[in-house]
């Protein structure tokens, strides 16, 4: 299986902005949880949430070019620029770079704003700008336009499996030599609707931290952000790590085969409904880490996991799990020397993704 190299990382999320901020947050081991206020029948709801900022985008583009660009695309643009900068290719010819964006829910705030324009002012006042921006591939399009990237573009919406699924295709582009580099990222956005649904589906939110291995209870905290990686098939030059294997699909019979010599980086993000599956799937003697407490519960979290894994492998050392360890699993409590990471994400009753990465 072809290995691909991670050359650059660009992130924005609850922990701050840029790979240095992410590294600091992982070392510190505490998630920066703020608040999302959403209207509801019973009055205003205050939910714990990880919010992402996009102010730093003005370091890369003049403010006026962002006039029509919504928060979803801004997060994506910022992640993209930071990844290119980190990978040392900003300013070079990007015309043959592929762009891949994964999003669990798309631009939910703009989708909702479009609906609001209809609900509030009638069908004839539907806003075309909101409509155009609510189309899922708007972020990828804005990235291509701003960067002059004329290679293939792919946006994938597969809920929790958006990132692994998109990575399968990104890898194929590199394996086929269609492009030399892929700007690969994930974006998810908070909005009134997402906040309200979290409250309705998961009950009142009393906790202020995700306890990912406490599988017996619900501790998810919604987040937003963008995590982008610059991927290439070429081996030369400095890199964070390589991605050696990408396995994803559904398992109906038998057990998932997972590497025994890798740190298991779990995609558990406090959602109780997936607890049993993680307990069932992770091999008994595994060393386990989980960093969702730093960035939040969202489909794009899988790309943050990749970024975190890349940092772990660059350092050769895994960060301890933020917060308390939970039941039935050997979660690492002190930094652990690590040469291989297996990022494991489970969803629904049968879906899985296992991404194996190693030090270059």
């Amino acid at each position, binding site marked *: 299986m072809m290995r691909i190299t991670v050359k650059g990382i660009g992130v924005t999320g609850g922990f701050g902005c840029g790979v240095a901020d992410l590294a600091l947050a992982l070392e510190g081991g505490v998630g920066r949880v703020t608040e999302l206020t959403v209207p509801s029948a019973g009055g205003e709801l205050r939910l714990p949430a990880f919010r992402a900022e996009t102010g730093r985008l003005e370091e890369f583009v003049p403010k006026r070019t962002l006039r029509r660009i919504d928060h979803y695309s801004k997060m994506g643009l910022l992640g993209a620029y930071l990844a290119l900068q980190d990978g040392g290719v900003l300013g070079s010819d990007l015309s043959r770079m592929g762009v891949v964006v994964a999003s669990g829910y798309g631009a939910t705030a703009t989708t909702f704003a*479009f609906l609001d324009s209809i609900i509030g002012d009638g069908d004839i006042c539907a806003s075309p700008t909101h*409509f*155009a921006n*609510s189309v899922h591939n708007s972020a990828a*399009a804005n990235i*291509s336009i701003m960067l002059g990237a*004329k290679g293939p573009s792919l946006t994938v919406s*597969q809920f929790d499996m958006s990132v692994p699924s998109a990575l399968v295709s990104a890898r194929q582009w590199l394996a086929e030599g*269609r492009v030399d580099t892929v700007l690969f990222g994930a974006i998810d956005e908070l909005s009134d609707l997402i906040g309200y649904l979290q409250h309705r589906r998961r009950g009142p939110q009393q906790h202020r931290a995700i306890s990912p291995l406490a599988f017996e209870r619900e501790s998810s905290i919604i987040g937003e952000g963008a995590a982008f990686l610059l991927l290439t098939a070429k081996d030369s030059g400095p890199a964070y790590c390589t991605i050696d294997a990408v396995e994803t699909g559904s398992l109906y019979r038998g057990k998932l085969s997972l590497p025994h010599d890798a740190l298991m980086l779990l995609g558990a993000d406090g959602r109780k409904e997936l607890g049993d599956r993680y307990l069932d799937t992770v091999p008994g003697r595994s060393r386990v880490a989980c960093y969702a407490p730093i960035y939040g519960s969202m489909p794009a979290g899988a790309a943050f996991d990749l970024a975190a894994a890349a940092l772990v492998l660059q350092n050769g050392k895994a960060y301890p799990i933020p917060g308390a360890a939970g039941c039935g699993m050997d979660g690492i409590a002190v930094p652990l020397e690590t040469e291989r990471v297996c990022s494991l994400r489970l969803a629904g009753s049968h879906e899985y993704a296992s991404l194996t990465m190693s030090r270059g």
Partner: protein
Amino acid sequence: MTHPWPVAITGLGCICAAGTDLARCMESLYGGRRAPEASTRFTSSHPTRFPVFEVPGFAEPPELLRTSALGLHAAREALADAGLDLETLRGLRVGVCVGTTVGSAMNNEPFCRDYRAGLDPDLEPIERIMRSNPAAAIAREFELTGPCQTVVNACASGTDAVGLAASWIRGGICDLAIAGGADELGRITYNGFISLMITDDSPCKPFDKNRKGLNLGEGAGMLVLESEELRSRRGVRARSYLLGYGSACDAHHLTAPKPDGEGLRYAIAEALSCCGTPAEAVSFVNAHGTGTPDNDRVESRVLADLLPGVPFLSTKGYTGHTLGAAGAIEAVFTVACLERGMIPGSAGFSTADPDLGGTPVQACTGISGTVALSESLAFGGNNSVILLGKRGAA
């Protein structure tokens, strides 16, 4: 690559306004029949009524979004066509790659209205969205174990899904793939496209001098793709082969195509290069041809430059613009036309526009070649092209 080009296409399925299966669709196309009209399923307070192409008599089950139900319907037809039963599928690693736009949108108008009105609406509409991801719905239905991907590349999604699935087959990521697209008609999309002022209040006229815009449609197209090696082992016939796939971004504007068609030019060249097919081998083009002033102008000029004299048509005059399903429905139509050795007239066209690169075929036209091209130009500037035809045609 584990498997080289070309990739075998062993099953086809299609449902749209032109018919509830492929045979019925092709009958409508060759018969020159179309009947766009105001929607029977939703209303809009817009003073002008814009005709749409609805699938008649298709009711989705309550637990699924209409988009996913349409997708499943076409998938069933394609799997049966490919001689694949549940048992055989279980023994294979099968991927699913489906394009959509509406099918992935986190919106449900009644739910949002109630929420905005200060109520606590029933969660079922949201739960329905969560269980109706178009690719996942197919994977779940048949208990498929391979990779699952819903492509949301706007109007190019269907073409891209086919090209990406072929890539998975060639890379040995899965043995077989169900690839295609699905999209439903709905109020939100309807109002959205009207607000962009690119819809026609009369039946659409792709490539015509008096074209005013698109008509929306709905439906699904599905193809079964597999390696030539697997096809031969299974002992089934290929209906056609995927000979190439190309895709490039204009990087120009969120909703308008680049005037010089740069992305489309690149995509066509890339698709032809996969099997080294010479441009002269292309016997017809199933164009994107939405009927908007911009698309038809840009597209026809590129075709005139790169494929001069090659007959082209838009089948959107028969189906409307089915968004995420379009590229897949059109891929299916292209195979059917190659098999029959005939393309239907480009519905809606009557008067040539001197500003365009050429004119589409106006009546059923015999085709003697074995290779054809199908292309999609999308919001966001994606241009995607697939090449279909006989193995060894290059």
